[in-house]
């Protein structure tokens, strides 16, 4: 009897409890989306915060332990997590979430990728062969991903399929309303020239019509040098910008260096859920992003 219950307990330990779907989200935006769509039917673990540079995460033992237990991994894909997710897959021994398995969801497959390089050459910096992976910065992309993600949740957890679909429908309705509001608010941003730190807001610019005139990183992934900053400064004399944008996780110094010299504001963007006060969910993330962009554009000379 004791032996049998021990075996049952061990089996439960090995297979994991089937109560809620264990979700491993690589970045906060997909963790937040999983919350919206999964409600109480899911248990979400988010591997990184908006204050971390998701290109450079270490495959820490704690992440391997979480990966091992996951029923679903939600990643951006497109090589965003290529420095650490493969190491987790290699050490995490979890076939449920192996690439190719139903438990592996890549968000980038559901949006139109920008900046897909024609030529792959590392002299261009750390270019991503699938295109720019920072897809969460445009709100319409979130909607494009929500539908397929809800379907995946329903497929993995058919018992609660109705709940996932109902929450997805509700989310879509609220998101469409928010899109109308954000696009109306952001009208004054159309055509506003800006300087970015890393090329990580291309989707945001394409969505709202902002114009990137320079980046502080000479090549993607190569930190700004003073020499390059001088060049950017020179270029901005001919083609002025209204603000310097910096994601919350990035070093503030290069942006400040430039901003002090040409007297334009530095705007810190949350970049994801949790990147600033008031960005506890995806709605807040875009509310704050647009509010700060408007402040930056309005505060310029």
């Amino acid at each position, binding site marked *: 009897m004791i032996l049998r219950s021990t075996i049952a307990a061990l089996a439960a*330990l*090995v*297979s*994991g409890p089937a109560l809620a779907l264990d979700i491993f989200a690589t970045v906060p935006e997909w963790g937040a989306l999983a919350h919206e769509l999964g409600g109480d039917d899911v248990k979400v673990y988010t591997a*990184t*915060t908006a*204050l*971390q*540079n998701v*290109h*450079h*995460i*270490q*495959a*820490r*033992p*704690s992440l*391997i*332990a*979480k990966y*091992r*237990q996951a029923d679903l991994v939600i*990643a951006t*894909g*497109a*090589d965003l*997590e*290529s*420095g*650490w*997710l*493969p*190491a987790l*897959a*290699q*050490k*995490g*021994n*979890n*076939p449920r979430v*192996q*690439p*190719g*398995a139903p438990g592996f969801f890549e968000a980038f497959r559901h949006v139109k990728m920008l900046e*897909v*390089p*024609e*030529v*792959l050459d*590392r002299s261009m*910096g*750390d270019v991503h*062969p*699938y295109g720019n992976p920072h897809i969460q910065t445009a709100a319409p992309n979130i909607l494009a991903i929500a539908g397929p993600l809800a379907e995946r949740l329903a497929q993995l957890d058919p018992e609660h399929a109705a709940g996932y679909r109902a929450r997805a429908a509700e989310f879509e309705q609220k998101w469409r309303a928010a899109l109308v509001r954000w696009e109306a608010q952001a009208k004054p941003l159309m055509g506003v020239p800006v300087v970015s730190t890393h090329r990580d807001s291309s989707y945001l610019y394409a969505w709202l019509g902002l114009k990137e005139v320079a980046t502080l990183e000479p090549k993607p*992934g*190569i*930190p700004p040098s003073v020499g390059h900053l001088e060049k950017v400064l020179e270029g901005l004399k001919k083609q002025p910008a209204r603000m310097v944008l910096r994601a919350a*996780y990035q*070093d503030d110094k290069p942006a400040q260096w430039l901003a002090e010299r040409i007297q334009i504001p530095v705007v810190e963007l949350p970049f994801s859920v949790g990147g600033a006060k008031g960005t506890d969910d995806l709605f807040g993330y875009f509310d704050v992003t647009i509010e700060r962009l408007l402040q930056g554009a309005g505060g310029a000379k």
Partner: protein
Amino acid sequence: MIQHPVFSVVAGIALLGVTSLAAAQSPGRSFNPKTSLILQGTFADYSSDAEPEVSGVLLGPETEPRPAGFSLAETELVIEANVDDQFHGWASIALENEDGETAVAVEEAYVDTLALPAGLALKVGRFFSELGYQNHVHAHGWDFVDLPLVYRALLAGQVNDDGAQLRWVAPTDLFFEVGVEALRGSEFPGGGDAGDGSEAGVAFVHLGGDVGESHSWRVGLSHLATEASNRLTGEDVPTAFTGDSDIGILDVVYKWAPGGNPSQRSFVLNFEAMHRREQGTLTDELSGVTSDYEGDQQGSYLQGVYKFMPRWRVGLRLERLRSDNTVANNPGGEFDALLDDSYDPGRASVMLDFSNSEFSRLRLQFSRDATRPDDEKDNQFFVQYVMSLGSHPAHQF
């Protein structure tokens, strides 16, 4: 690892020469299967030209320091891909300079499982053992130009042997991993005449986790038990060892990355202690003198590497070795090297490196080496480059 099976197929076709197809498709496919080539070279300068022996131990093969002057270190070609939905394959081929000739060495060539249930994974082929912390780290991932002294003296570098490894990861939030390896045993400290081809065994256990957002750690215990049969060491006068060799290793690594961001500033502290016991007989090949032998050698290192600003790191490594060997029969002083306990070998190194991107690294290192017999000191100076072309495999913790 992260790749769609369809892409592997396309990449395979591209490799066969139908490049136009791959070019017409998304350029993402041209990196699959993941291929990378590591280029490494050093310039070394030594103040001492004494034989690089280490008191208290018989050094295994290929344990000399890097050649003085300019030299190419191993050029490493790595190819990896998922074989299908069940298997993943990895090969790393090293081209090395050996006595003026280029030697090709299969460093690793293994297949591991992708879809075993219950947190299990099996690996077969030739691979770096999960012994200790640095044993599985490829040369391009080292934090110093050379391996710690304990690896050089007690393992003759890294243990990469033919065999099988079974590993289990517990479904717990605290990282807990155990594994066993059955190995051929042809690698130092085993080796020598062929036995039955499965003479070494490794067992390891790892625990790890985070403390807050900025701190992470891992602790490991591992053990290697192997047999040697006429294992020859020493360049001029070979000494043969036949018997059992056992090594126990404790490894600790602690990493600090403020807010979980290692790219601006970070610190890695790493400690390993090894204890090797050998029991058997020694034969001096020149005189034919034989003796019973009990070797007891232990050593440790402590190293810290601090990234003080993006791309720049400094490191300090302190090392010590101690031996207490028993040689029953030493009529003409044949085994004096093992009995020299007049002082404990030690080494101290400082390094500074710069990484223009994650694919390139330039390094300066200075080491104060006091490992040779008779208290001979050596000031060692190194300049090194490590470059990686192509799709760089993700690094383990």
